[in-house]
């Protein structure tokens, strides 16, 4: 139990400090650690937890609470939460103090310019890695593509898309 909590703290504490471009970029590494390395959950369960974390409001990285809970109960969820959000929040606070004073500095504009394409690449990578990591049939792939286009090019609220995905999946049988 203590060993598992320690593994959770190290895993998410580490990911917290390299999660450039937001939490979604760490999903492939989370998947590898939780499924392949520590065997806390299966690849299919990972996608289910991801789905649950996306159907609930709040930060997308809430999946860490579910992974922690699967591995070591509510304590595991708490450790995973503090591990994932603690270190990066402290860093955000410290950097914020410098950031505010550098509103017109050229290095700040350069950093913003360099990080944008990397962050956007990480957004795509998380979606691609999740598709690769699960054995979906054509109905699920079709739903993913339709949802991608609907979200990117229409103003439909994500809640409608998520609900629509559930209904479609039940109709065609996953």
């Amino acid at each position, binding site marked *: 139990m203590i060993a598992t909590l320690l593994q959770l703290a190290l895993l998410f504490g580490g990911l917290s400090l390299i999660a450039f471009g*937001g939490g979604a970029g760490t999903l492939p590494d989370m998947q590898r650690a939780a499924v392949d390395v520590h065997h806390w959950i299966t690849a299919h369960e990972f996608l289910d937890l991801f789905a649950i974390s996306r159907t609930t409001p709040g930060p997308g990285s809430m999946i860490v609470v579910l992974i922690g809970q699967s591995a070591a109960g509510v304590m595991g969820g708490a450790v995973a939460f503090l591990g994932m959000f603690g270190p990066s929040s402290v860093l955000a606070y410290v950097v914020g103090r410098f950031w505010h004073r550098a509103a017109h500095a050229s290095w700040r504009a350069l950093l*913003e310019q360099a990080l944008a394409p990397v962050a956007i690449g990480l957004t795509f990578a998380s979606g691609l890695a999740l598709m690769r990591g699960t054995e979906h049939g054509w109905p699920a792939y079709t739903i993913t593509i339709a949802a991608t286009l609907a979200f*990117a090019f229409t103003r439909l609220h994500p809640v409608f898309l998520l609900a629509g995905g559930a209904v479609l999946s039940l109709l065609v049988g996953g």
Partner: protein
Amino acid sequence: MDSVPTQHRPSLAALFLGFVRIGMMSFGGGLTAWIRREVVLRRGWLDDQQFLSGYALSQLVPGASNVNLSVFIGAQLRGVPGALAAVAGLTAVPIAIVLTVGTIYLHAHTMPGSAAFSTALTGVGAVAIGLNLGTGIQLGRLHLHRIVPVAVTTIVALGIGVLGFRLLHVLAVMLPVSLLLAWLGRRQ
């Protein structure tokens, strides 16, 4: 960090409750839009320029960008206690919901009807993947207008998402490369 006029400063309780509201309403990835709506439009705690500056920062710092943004906003309004109030408010309701649903899910494996639940969840998961990809398309259309950044985005996306390289390794290579390319682009 003390550029906010005192009359607009919320109390810690107001800050906490404002972020509770944000945390409750943001389903499926629209969190940044909800934060702006509440903090800038409804409450007037920050103006758009302050908000966007914080948004850029929250993308630069590792970690969940919306949590970072909440830290930034809370700290700017009320220092360290403000940052804690904002993050606690943002995550309180989602944690309660996620733990409840998670507990149901962990038990549903052995309950009748779990097949239908699992099928529905597969559809939700397929849409959730689409939300990530769709966000990438939206951001790409806003920020990627030249071939060099598009190439950087593509390499990062395929390197991690398809070839399965680890995040840290890809960042160790691509962050310096992207920084160098941006610097060279400016010198021309």
